[in-house]
């Protein structure tokens, strides 16, 4: 069974994701930032739900796991 780090699905705009090394923190991809990581790795801008204002973080694909869509 493939582990999470071997995930090959490309994250998309609007995907819900879990941040690795972040105690289960989740967020939503709000921008595909392009190949701005070391060696041209793709970077994703993730919105984290916080009150009173949301927070943002830009991460590499290997730092996130895509969560199943919730309806």
């Amino acid at each position, binding site marked *: 069974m493939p582990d999470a780090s071997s995930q090959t699905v490309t994250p998309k705009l609007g995907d819900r994701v879990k*941040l*690795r*090394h*972040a105690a289960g*923190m989740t967020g939503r991809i709000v921008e595909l*930032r*392009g*190949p*701005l*990581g*070391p060696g*041209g*790795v793709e*970077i994703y801008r993730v919105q984290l739900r916080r009150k009173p204002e949301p*927070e*943002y*973080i*830009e*991460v*590499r694909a290997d*730092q996130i796991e895509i969560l199943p869509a919730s309806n």
Partner: protein
Amino acid sequence: MPSNALLRWQNDRLVRLNAIDAQCDVVFALAPPNPELADEDLRGYTMILSAHWQGFCRDLHSECIQIVAAATPPAMQLMIQKQCLAGRQLDGANPSYDTIRKDFERFDFALTPVLDANPANALRITHLDHLNKWRNYAAHHSTRLPPAGGPFTLATVRVWRNSCDELAAELDRIMYNQLQAQCRGSRRNRSNLNA
């Protein structure tokens, strides 16, 4: 080695700006002339130039964050990435020199003295200031002309574009050297701690 942000500026953003420039050329050469359309095109060109300049600066800043984060242990990377991005002005404010300086100085250096080392940068920063003032004039359809930087002509906007292009290369070079030095220092400190 150029950043991906600079490559995108050169291979995508400048190409798009050149297409707008060529369109302005056509409208300015219309016979009979259409000054209203020429004015609209020039305002559009100015706003698009400012938007692409902001996009380049934001891309370069993001790329720098990722380089710094990658030099830290995995458990600390999210903290670095979040802190470097918190309240970043380039995500919302106009890309004035002050905005750029504040955001890039998060990487623990003073930008102005480094830029001042090249005497050509003073005029480029002045042009950037003019671009921002005229960008606001264009975006808000203001009737009050900014006190400096005019006349508002195609030639003037081209001068601003060239200054943005030259400043992009300067910022790219400065950040490359800055992060190289910091990463070398960080490696040295780590090996001293481990010794």
